[in-house]
């Protein structure tokens, strides 16, 4: 696992202040549609991967918003890019690009580029 240089606290509250929002900011820069997400979960219910793996795009976006990098890392590589979510999303969010950019952000973080 990539060491991001800090630990999520043992406290189970989401510590918004301790979170790092760089992944969200990075994605948002080239895919502004991440802002349109209303957490309806349609993407996750369409998702080919979610039935069998701990993965939900809807949650992933929330994790990014809240700065929960560890959570992102746990699931961001489970997407199969099947594209069902794009068809399903009622807000027209460019879902697959968001997943892809999150993956890219993770790579960049590991290379200390962001």
């Amino acid at each position, binding site marked *: *696992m*990539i060491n991001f240089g800090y630990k999520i606290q043992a406290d189970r509250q989401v510590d918004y202040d301790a979170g790092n929002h760089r992944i969200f900011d990075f994605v948002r820069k*080239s895919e502004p*549609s991440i802002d349109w997400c209303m957490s309806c979960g349609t993407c996750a219910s*369409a998702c*080919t*991967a979610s*039935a*069998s*793996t701990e993965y939900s795009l809807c949650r992933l976006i929330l994790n990014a918003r809240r700065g929960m990098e560890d959570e992102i*890392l*746990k699931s961001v*590589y*489970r997407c*199969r*890019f*099947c*594209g*069902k979510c794009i*068809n*399903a999303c009622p807000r*027209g969010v*460019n879902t*697959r*690009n968001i997943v*892809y950019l999150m*993956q*890219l952000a*993770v*790579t960049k973080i*590991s290379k200390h580029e962001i």
Partner: protein
Amino acid sequence: MKFDLFVLPFTLGVIFLLGYLGYKYATWFRGLNKSDRSKVISGFFSVRLFRAVNEIIMESLLHRNIFRRNRLLGFMHMSLAFGWFLLIAIGNLESRVYEPTSMNLPYVPIFFKFFNANPDAFPLHRVFSFTMDLLLLLVLGGVALAFLKRFFSKAYGMKRTTRLMLGDRLALTTLWLIFPLRLLAESFTSAVYGGGDFLTGTFGSFLGSFLPAANLYYPAWWAYSLSLGVFFLALPFSRYMHIPTEVVLILSRHFGLAEHAERTPFTEVEINSCSRCGVCLDACQLSFAGGVQNIQSTYQLKSIRYNSIQPTESFGCNMCGRCDNVCPVGIDISGIRMITRNELNGKVPDVSFAEQSMPHAHKSDVIYFAGCMTHQTPSIKKAMVSLLETAGVNYWFMDEWGGLCCGRPMMLAGHKAQADIMIEKNRKLIIESGARILVTSCPICYKVFAKEYNLNIRVMHHTQYLLELAESHKIRPGHLAGNAVYHDPCELSRDIKVYEEPRKLLGKMVQVKSNEFEKDNALCCGNSLANLSADNDIRRKVTEDAYIKMNASGSQYLVTSCPMCKKAFEKVADVEVKDIAELVVRSMQKSRSPVKASGLKVAHPVEVIAG
């Protein structure tokens, strides 16, 4: 020995170029894997060599393929390449005829007129000097066209022309200068010493009438040599590298080399073979309909070559293959794109990503695999199930409850390693079922089943399978009123070419109206899975444009055989958009041939196998 100081720039340029090419070719060859290397070696001693040489002449010199696409562009390339080649070849011949004895260093034929200013004394002199002038005129014509193309690309029927880099600028400028300078040098020389034919002679005496030719001819030869030298020096760092590389590409292709999953020297050869002719630009729907101007093949190849490829460029392409289809050099652009996408992703951190909810295999004769997308178009799924039921096929609906992915989207997203794990799992299941035929409704799945799964059974798209069922009278499609336009989904066209079966099947039901944008020239529906970046706006523009181009308005149906295409066109169409399977069911209902209802068969069978 004939020598003058001014030949040095040219000579050094040639030596540098040859050295560089030799080094490059050797590195490429060394970088090949064993089997590819032996293919190359045996290729040289087989009939394939002759075929390759033939193609080299047709393509590298005559540019037949560009010619076919665009006459003017073809003529430009042909006059430059073939004209120059003949200038060199006949120049060599000329110098040998005139001086069979002396040592014929490479620069001698190039600067022949300087060393043999007035060759009147030689036999055949009229013929040679006429020919050489004619060739020079041909090349100059090509240069003039190239010059015009940069400024008036529209006249070539091209909407856009390619962008330039520094090496390109240098090479391009010198290339434009070479032949005008040669004309000047030879004309001045003829003004001073006589000789020269209809071009250089006439032009020489014209120039000599008001310019001090005796003072100018020597500097002109210097300038000519310099421009040649600089051109050769800049060539490896410019797009003109495609000239020597294309030859290698044609040879390697004839020797049986192709793209692999990873980058190989063959990839390098392909990347360097792009002449940036720009033919691919005009084929790209994202360019002419979507307004995206940075992802097209030639830009892509250039960025890869200079190691400056950006993810958005690579992942923003539809992978429709329309550019592959028109590329006169025949570069496997899609193959390269896949490699690039994998390279850009790099190695994925160690997380278990490929868990699938795997159903148990069911013994059956036929497997039906709907595909993820088909689950979002239940009318296709339902049509297929009722057709299979009606035909009495012993089938297993493998992904009845979704959750299974064929792996191709993952491959398209540049995650080949993960895709392979999924593919392996699905493969096991397919083999376990003992089925002899695998039928899928999704062209994306079809392609990966056919190309990557290494199955020993028949893989069919439902268009093909339904045709077989119809021809063996297991189902009886009836007549429907009206006519239909058939849209070839990308994944069934160009690369795989499933063209006849759908049309034949469709022909049993309706009149099929053909249009310009079909088969190899089919348009992408805009909904391509391969494109990660394009937003809804771009997608919709592509869809709308494609719909208009196919001219389906006024027909009864727009028929396709891909759930994605169906979903895309439904949004913009003013006619009914149907999958071919749906239409078969409708035609059977209309003609009252029995269709069984489609209750799906197996209870929900999910067992999670992690890892």
